[in-house]
């Protein structure tokens, strides 16, 4: 139960941002979506949890099927999106922690809204904070944490719902290069746990460290798609050039 998408496309007004995107990602893989700025990586990733609605195509993710066309019923889709997002977590470049809530409150909020008893949520939150090495920070305000710590909190928050798939949009772009490894460690550890991860980045070094698969995008189209082997043996001139730039 991985991710299969077929013929996804998306335009904003008259600019086509994604053209006929198809790929399949087996369960448990960590796939890197690589490409230059403006290639459409974020848009594609945001489609995977329906923060963006594709214009056309089909998508099978976390056991749910979607098919998009002009006739897509917004209301219906919004309802499905809400259940989908409980199985497909997302981590953002700017962390997007709620600043007026403590670390612990950030973690337990969504599960409680969705009916988890508060005590259970707190227990799980503390386990996850342990796992990302932030045991001591449960009562801290997000603004008092470093970027790397905030991003680990954001990852823990996404894990609270035990998602099948975890999406990362440039999780290290706002971080010091030295701090990037904290996030690398967490992603690597998660990949042992069988969760399917998709990581958007434009940083080749970071990509190499975490990827088991790579998809390379250029101008809204998939140029290269394959195992992490492709970092050593790129199949296209474009990807080769990108790796060497």
């Amino acid at each position, binding site marked *: 139960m991985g991710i299969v998408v077929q013929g996804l496309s998306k335009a904003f007004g008259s600019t086509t941002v994604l053209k006929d995107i198809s790929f399949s990602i087996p369960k448990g893989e960590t796939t890197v979506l690589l490409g230059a700025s403006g290639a459409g990586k974020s848009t594609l990733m945001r489609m995977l949890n329906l923060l963006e609605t594709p214009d056309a195509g089909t998508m099978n993710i976390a056991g749910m099927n979607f098919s998009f066309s002009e006739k897509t019923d917004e209301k219906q889709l919004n309802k499905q999106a*809400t*259940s989908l*997002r409980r199985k497909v977590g997302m981590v953002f470049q700017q962390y997007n922690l709620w600043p*007026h809530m403590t670390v612990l409150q950030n973690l337990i909020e969504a599960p409680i809204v969705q009916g988890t008893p508060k005590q259970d949520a707190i227990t799980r939150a503390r386990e996850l904070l342990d796992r990302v090495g932030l045991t001591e920070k449960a009562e801290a*305000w997000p603004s008092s944490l470093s970027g790397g710590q905030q991003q680990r909190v954001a990852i823990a928050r996404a894990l609270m719902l035990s998602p099948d798939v975890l999406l990362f949009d440039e999780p290290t772009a706002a971080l010091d290069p030295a701090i990037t490894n904290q996030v690398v460690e967490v992603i690597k550890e998660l990949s042992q746990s069988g969760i399917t991860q998709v990581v958007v980045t434009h940083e080749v070094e970071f990509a190499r460290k975490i990827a088991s698969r790579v998809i390379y995008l250029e101008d809204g189209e998939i140029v290269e798609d394959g195992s992490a082997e492709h970092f050593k043996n790129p199949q296209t001139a474009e990807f080769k050039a990108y790796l060497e730039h």
Partner: protein
Amino acid sequence: MNLEAIMDYMPQLLKGLETTLELTFASLFSGLALAVVFTLILSLRFKPLEWLVKAQILLFTGTPLLVQIFLIYYGPAQFKGLQDSFLWPLLSEPWFCALLALALNSAAYSTQLFKGAVDAVPAGDWEAALALGMNKRQTLIRIVLPHAFRRALPAYGNEMILVMKGTSLASTITLMDLMGYADRLNARTYDTLTVFTLAGVIYLTMTGIMTLVIRIMERRALAFSN
């Protein structure tokens, strides 16, 4: 202004203090409750209600509070139907009319404040909640409004003080608040300077206390941003 006069006037003025305080807090409380509901209506864009709230804001921020108090107090008497209705005992009561005017006035300004604060909450707050499977209403109520209210607190503190000072206008519709007693005392003694200086000092003291309390609330509510 001599000490003897001050000692004589002060207890007479303070008789109105209770009414002033009651009116202030009743107006603030009802105004706040209304403003929260109005902010929800505007933020969720509930269609027909949204227009009503916008009209209410236009009316109550666009006209003087004194005009609003007069209209609410003297207006209903012009309508025979209202005089016979169950509302009449309330609408003929100056205390209730002043409360209604102040609460609606405060609700209008507070809603503007809160809606502004809701709009200023970063998009990332929304996205994070949606990405965690919360719907729009849950996100607004559980995340965005609490964040917005905290950020709006300094401005809302000013609104609280404006309402407190605004209660003095209620004396124009015969309410015996602090200002009402000051008026009466002035009419009897013609010692205008002393009487209104004392009244001013009492208002100033209340402003000072409220400012202090608001600062403490702010410090707690905005502790996260330090």
